[in-house]
């Protein structure tokens, strides 16, 4: 028999809030985490704004030992470990003395320790390879974040890192879900992280996909679904969830945030209008439809869609794909929101941070607002009624949220969260 899978703990390190309480408060009140960064300006970036979580030296020391912090220079591993350890604690789980063979992790990343890697490259090119020390590999290997978490928590089941660009976080959730559903693990810590700063964001700035119009007004810079959307704002951080078999969660008598009903991942093969950087709409629609079918629900059962919606010209394409896949439009279309209006696009971390926000809506009964779209794109409102794109947070009982993420490489992921009902 296949296991039902529930969420029993969450953690988040976001540009507008570190920790579940601060983040939950921030998204309900529309607090922005986007700021101007003078180092981006000095480096000649067109877009000098971004989202970076605030993590003090004191906070670091609540999660890491002095030895772990010696020569430590990986923001992605830092964020991932804080979010992951918080989720573990939130689920009421202890740190095991011996390896816990029933618990594992799929914790995704786009890059690892990019600042550490830069440091190492400078030393290497200076002929000082023997002076690198012991910390370069662990911080720069792609699986760094899952390796750190596995060691800190004593995980003895699968410990791995997935990577699928901006779909990474959503994919990690579905990989952990599949593993528990198949009975191969009781608990999976799932999530994703992204390094911060110029060495991750520079490539996007060069592609001219970041907005350069809001260096003087950072909080208004990220404008999904707006007629004046002019490119995305880069972000960083991490989101994490403890997924658990329903049986194990009930045995432990622990809090259940929501159930994962199912989902789907696929790719457009970079065919039709799909490419390295653009989605094949046929594949996006298939992904959404397959997720709904897998979850055994009907499109009309969806209360809220948490979109990918980055604030580029592709926002309309995404809305059109949702509308066609669900065969719903106008006032029949579900509510839809994008967290990126508050924190920017956290790249490989976006799917997991946004999924934490999606599940908080179910647990606490609200639909968080879309900031910066007072001038809604008219193509979008030709398909979706304005009131379905809330500009102020709505207090409402939420049963089902569909969350999708799309990434470079023409990859898609869609997961269906539902209020837990025995």
């Amino acid at each position: 028999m296949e296991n039902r899978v529930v969420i029993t703990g969450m953690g988040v390190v976001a540009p507008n809030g570190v920790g579940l309480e601060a983040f939950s408060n921030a998204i309900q009140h529309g607090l922005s985490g986007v700021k101007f960064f003078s180092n981006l300006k000095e480096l000649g970036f067109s877009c000098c704004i971004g989202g970076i979580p605030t993590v003090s030296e004191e906070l670091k020391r609540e999660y890491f030992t002095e030895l772990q912090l010696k020569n430590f220079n990986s923001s992605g591993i830092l964020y991932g470990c804080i979010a992951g350890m918080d989720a573990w604690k939130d689920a009421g789980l202890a740190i095991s003395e011996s390896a816990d063979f029933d618990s594992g992790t799929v914790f995704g990343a786009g890059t690892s320790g990019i600042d550490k890697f830069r440091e190492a490259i400078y030393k290497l090119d200076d002929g000082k390879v023997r002076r690198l020390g012991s910390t370069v590999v662990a911080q720069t290997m792609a699986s760094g974040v899952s390796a750190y978490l596995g060691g800190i928590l004593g995980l003895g089941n699968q410990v791995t890192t997935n990577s699928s660009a901006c779909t990474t976080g959503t994919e990690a959730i579905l990989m952990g879900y599949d593993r528990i559903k198949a009975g191969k693990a009781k608990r999976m810590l799932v999530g994703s992280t992204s390094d911060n700063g110029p060495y991750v964001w520079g490539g996007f700035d060069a592609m001219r996909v970041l907005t350069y119009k809001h260096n003087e007004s950072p909080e208004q810079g990220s404008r999904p679904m707006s007629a004046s959307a002019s490119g995305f704002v880069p972000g960083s951080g991490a989101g994490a969830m403890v997924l658990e078999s329903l049986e194990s969660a009930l045995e432990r008598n622990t809090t259940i945030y929501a159930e994962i009903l199912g989902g789907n991942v696929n790719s457009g093969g970079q065919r039709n209008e799909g490419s390295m950087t653009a989605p094949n709409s046929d594949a996006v629609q298939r992904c959404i439809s397959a997720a709904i079918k897998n979850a055994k629900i009907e499109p009309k059962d969806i209360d809220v869609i948490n979109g990918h919606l980055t604030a580029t010209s592709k926002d309309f394409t995404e809305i059109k794909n949702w509308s066609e896949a669900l065969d719903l439009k106008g006032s029949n279309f579900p509510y839809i929101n994008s967290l990126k209006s508050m924190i920017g696009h956290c790249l490989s971390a976006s799917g997991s941070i946004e999924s934490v926000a999606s599940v908080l809506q179910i647990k606490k009964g609200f639909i968080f607002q879309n900031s910066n779209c007072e001038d809604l794109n008219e193509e979008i409102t030709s398909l979706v009624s304005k009131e379905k794109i809330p500009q102020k947070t709505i207090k409402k009982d939420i049963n089902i949220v569909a969350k999708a993420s799309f990434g470079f490489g023409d990859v898609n992921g869609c997961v269906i969260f539902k209020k837990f009902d025995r």
Partner: protein
Amino acid sequence: MRTNEQMISDLKEIVKPYIQNQHGFDSLTEETDFINDLKINSANLVDVVLDIEDKFDIEIDNDSMDKMLNVKAALEIIETKLSEK
């Protein structure tokens, strides 16, 4: 010229961040083994050697590094490298 006590005290300061057995550290002698007595992670021995190089302004070659498993060996190698300067 440093005395033996000074050298041990310098070395203690260097290994301090890496030790995972406080008792072994508190009772450190020339016979103390870095891995068995101080529970220093073997990967961190590389970092100890780099910190020694910085402190004494010497360069420790790979062969010497392989032998630096306890306080006594470390002291001998440091002294040899210092005398070659």
